[in-house]
């Protein structure tokens, strides 16, 4: 079992959450190119390292929050702006 530290509820079983995915900056739709928009929508870095992700606590506080997770060890730590 993996514990996910929710900034509102504390550590909870991963089964209470929905994994939203790797977070990335959203380009301005008014000025972005089709290529950059496609990269934003579909391309993930997927490193073997710490990554910033978004999680949704569907069975708890029902909030989206940011989380940093190491993709090799599954260790987690709060993202800089986690709420």
């Amino acid at each position, binding site marked *: 079992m993996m514990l996910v530290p929710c900034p*509102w509820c504390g550590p*909870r079983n991963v089964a209470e959450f929905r994994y939203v995915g790797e977070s990335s900056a959203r380009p301005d739709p008014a000025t972005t190119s089709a290529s950059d928009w496609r990269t934003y929508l579909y391309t993930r870095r997927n490193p073997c390292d710490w990554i910033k992700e978004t999680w949704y606590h569907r069975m708890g506080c029902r*909030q989206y929050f940011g989380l940093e997770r190491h993709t090799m060890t599954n260790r987690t730590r709060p993202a800089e702006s986690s709420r």
Partner: protein
Amino acid sequence: MSDTSSYSGPAPVARSPITPGPTRVGDGALSLNDESSVGKLLVHAPVDGPMAGALGTRFGRTAREAGDDTLVVGSGPGEWLVVASVQDLPKLTTWLEQQGEGDPGLVSVVDVTHGRAMMRLTGQAAADVLAKLTAVDLSDSVVPDGGAFRSSVARVATDVIRDDSGGIATSDRPSYLLHCERSSGQYLWDAVVDAGGEFGLTTRGATS
């Protein structure tokens, strides 16, 4: 939203989604009662606005005015569950909407009485029963009387509300309200009955 304050007919019927099954009679020390027919309002408002101040509690805690039947539960960040008798809902809704008008943020008050199931588990062994169904630590230091959280209970997203004084003449015993979506109510009831069997659980279906 319709003008509920002008409603003067008979109190609306709130039918429970739970069929209690064969009554189990233990020694009375541990009981599970269907309280689905109790009125429930769901309020959304900014976490720290005037509406939050009027409701008088925050996420993870409950509030009850002395001698009042109305229980306000901080069920989520910016989310409250107001539990009251069905007869009180119209005036309560009006009062809540008045508080909401003074709030600059987005406020909503929705009657979810018919959309939810609610049951009350009371007794010294109540936490032991729930410990079989949820991973959250139910010790007094984590969930004292007046504490609330939402988590997986028997894999159902459930509000767990510690409300000892709301137990029926059992103020010295722990009492938990379990609140979930209506369609999961029967399943949650059956799961709690199953978990409570070894503790001598007594069940009682809806009274209205």
